[in-house]
């Protein structure tokens, strides 16, 4: 009568193909990284500098005409995209206009923005400019730097915390999973050319937090079971721990995904990229805590009986458990 995402008792073998899974993950990471190197990210103005103008008008957006209207101003590279969203009203036609950073200027001057607005207004008199954002190259450079530092710092802090609470093998496994998740997220943003701005960094860090949450729950159980079953091979202990926590892992992932999907569909286009990153991160994070973090832990091995001081060392009963 209860809704069960996974059977009450599972005894699935997660490690029979662990090499395959690790291999797949490695390939995915390489692809993602390659895509990032080859294609690069579609940076928003936060990271690239420049101006975006969001327009709204009751009449349909005519990208070509907008372009013709703005082109004579000689502002360099201008991107115009129409935005579609299920939450828009019928007479709400939205476009985003992106102007590159102008030479020798920090933020684009109000005069330039005014020129663009006037040019568009002559073409579409009922157009409204609902947001104008401009970031200078100086700040955008710093923002990239801060963002990278933030992600590295988060991963570093987590590494230390898990190392203190568990063992270095656990920390390494967890961090490998984190790096895997972060790279795959960056990879999909590069592959699909979704706009990458400051909010996506927030999403990346949240993914770090979420993925870790998942990994830590599995590891916590591993630690407990290692104390309980001192003679069982590590592989079985890991497998049992994952099976025992599987129900919880699925429950939490599904509730989080339900909430995120609601936000993805209904939350409007402004934060859609952000929510997409998180949805992707939850899926990848759940996968990686089992197939990357635990699989790596299995490869690295753990010192058994690690939580007690080794006061039996040196006597003949050293390895016999009561």
């Amino acid at each position, binding site marked *: 009568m209860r809704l069960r995402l996974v059977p009450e008792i599972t005894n699935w073998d997660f490690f029979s193909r662990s090499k395959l899974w690790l291999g797949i993950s490695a390939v995915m990471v390489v692809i993602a990284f390659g895509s990032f190197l080859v294609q690069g990210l579609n940076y928003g103005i936060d990271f690239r500098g420049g101006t975006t103008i969001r327009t709204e008008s009751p009449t349909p957006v005519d990208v070509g005409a907008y372009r013709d209207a703005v082109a004579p101003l000689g502002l360099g590279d201008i991107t115009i995209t129409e935005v579609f969203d299920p939450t828009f009203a019928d007479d709400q036609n939205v476009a985003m206009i992106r102007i590159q950073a102008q030479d020798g200027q920090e933020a684009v001057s109000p005069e330039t923005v005014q020129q663009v607005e006037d040019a568009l207004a002559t073409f579409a008199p009922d157009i409204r400019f609902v947001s104008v954002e401009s970031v200078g190259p100086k700040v955008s450079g710093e923002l990239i730097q801060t963002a990278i530092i933030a992600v590295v710092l988060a991963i570093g802090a987590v590494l230390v915390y898990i190392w203190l609470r568990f063992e270095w093998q656990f920390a390494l496994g967890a961090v490998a999973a984190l790096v895997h998740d972060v790279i795959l997220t960056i990879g999909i943003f590069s592959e699909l050319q979704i706009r990458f701005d400051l909010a996506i960094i927030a999403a990346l860090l949240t993914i770090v937090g979420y993925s870790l949450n998942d990994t830590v729950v599995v590891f916590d159980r591993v630690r407990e079971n290692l104390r309980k079953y001192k003679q069982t091979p590590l592989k079985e202990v890991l497998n049992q721990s994952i099976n025992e926590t599987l129900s919880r892992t699925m429950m*939490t992932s599904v509730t989080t995904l339900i909430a*995120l999907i609601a936000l993805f569909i209904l939350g409007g286009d402004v934060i859609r990229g952000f929510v997409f990153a998180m949805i992707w991160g939850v899926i990848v994070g759940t996968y990686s805590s089992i197939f990357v973090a635990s699989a790596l832990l299995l490869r690295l091995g753990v010192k058994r009986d690690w939580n007690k001081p080794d006061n039996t060392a040196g006597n003949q009963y050293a390895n016999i458990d009561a």
Partner: protein
Amino acid sequence: MLQIELWKRVVIWGLVALGLLLALPNAFYTRVETSNDARAALETGATAEGLQEQASLWPSFLPSGLVNLGLDLRGGAHLLAEVQVADVYETRIKAMWPEVLALLREERGRIGTFRLQDSNAEELRIRLNEKPDMAAEAAALVRGLSRPVVSMTGAGASDIEVTVEGPDVVIRLSEAERLAMDQRTVAQALEIIRRRIDEVGTREPTIQRQGSDRILIQVPGIGSAAELKEIIGTTAQLTFQPVVTRTTNADMPPGPGNELLPAMDEDDVYYVLEEAAVVTGEELVDAQPTFDQNGRPAVNFRFDPTGARRFGDYTAENIGSPFAIVLDNEVISAPVIQSHIPGGSGIITGNFTVEESTNLAVLLRAGALPAGLEFLEERTIGPELGADSIEAGTVACIVAGIAVLVFMFLSYGTFGVFANIALMVNVALIFGLLSLIGATLTLPGIAGIVLTIGMAVDANVLVFERIREELKTARGPARAIELGYEKAMSAIVDANITTFITAVILYVMGSGPVRGFAITLGLGIITSVFTAFFVTRLLVAMWFERRRPKTLEV
């Protein structure tokens, strides 16, 4: 563990009730906002009609703290300005000239004649024409003018460096003085920007220092960043400078110690002025829009005692010669001094409209910005976009909440209901805390709440799953519940601390909307652990005491 002492129960319910009470005003946002505004107005002594009624819209015994809405939700303008601290160096060193001149003039017998040289901006270069070998002597004299720098780091350092370069005595600002000036300049700019924005009277502006020389300005409800720049961007640097000559030649070399400035309302008219000002706008205490004797808009001003004395002395000594009123490097007018003006007040006339004279008075009153501002970041968010975002966010929150509630009920039955109650308490607590600390809710912040809705059940899920497991082995439901909480503890703590670490890093490193997200995420972690460990457990305990079930289905 199922026995929870009475005092603990009281504390838990008390905290929940407090959280709900603090969150309550947000449910009546506009009403509370109107009431708060009216109350603030009444406190300042306003007596407009209807204020009393507006104030009484929300009872005063209830908390009235609201969650601040970020710019992306309310609409408004955001500016990141860099204060051009180096601007001040030149003025500062040039202002020393009259003092140096007076000092050296007295010693002319010993050091011979001397002359100020044209040189790059941030130094005074004085050449000894007759006795170049006396330069060291003269330098020693000038050194006597130095003052100690007042700052935390540069204690003991003096404010100027005087060096001898051949026949020249060169005066520069010391490094310590520059640093101390940077500090002062930014602090002063911050204060002046705050005053200017307050004069316009917008709600809850954010004006804060960022890094060593930047100022972040966020003003909700303002039409555009350009408008905001107009309010703060005009430097309104008012000076009164002696006029050397008037010319129509824009390329005329002004000569050392002088500068060439255009006239404000006459084309192709320029004035050569002495660079050292007689009085500056800093010595101004009041400025009011007024009309001159011909009925044209003008601005009335008054100096403080030092300014008044200097102005008085100068006018007494220079009757018949013109002096210039300079605003932001443009000469507003250059009247001839008719008589000694002892009172320290005067009137600025020019081709003003009434509006311009009012603005000028405001700018003068608020004081001059000590240095120029360069804008590194400008954002304008229209109120419609913000309203759309709030609406979309609210709908998404409600749908997400309901979906999770249904899902939890289907999965855990009665226990699911407990978790659901805890979840609702959780969201209310987040709002309560946000209102309490006056945090700002941004669009990513709403996403943080939605994410918390999804993740908040995690702690409960961990416990419930554990209880399920323990039921298979433990003796009796009570023991299973106890063990469930006991054993899930470490996983919950570790999992939440790690997430909390990332939230803290986000808060420290992030800015604006990202910071808003970090706040809701961090608060969400705290409240969800609290509700899972205390609220749900208390609910389970109360239910268990009443029902005493022999078997348990989770």
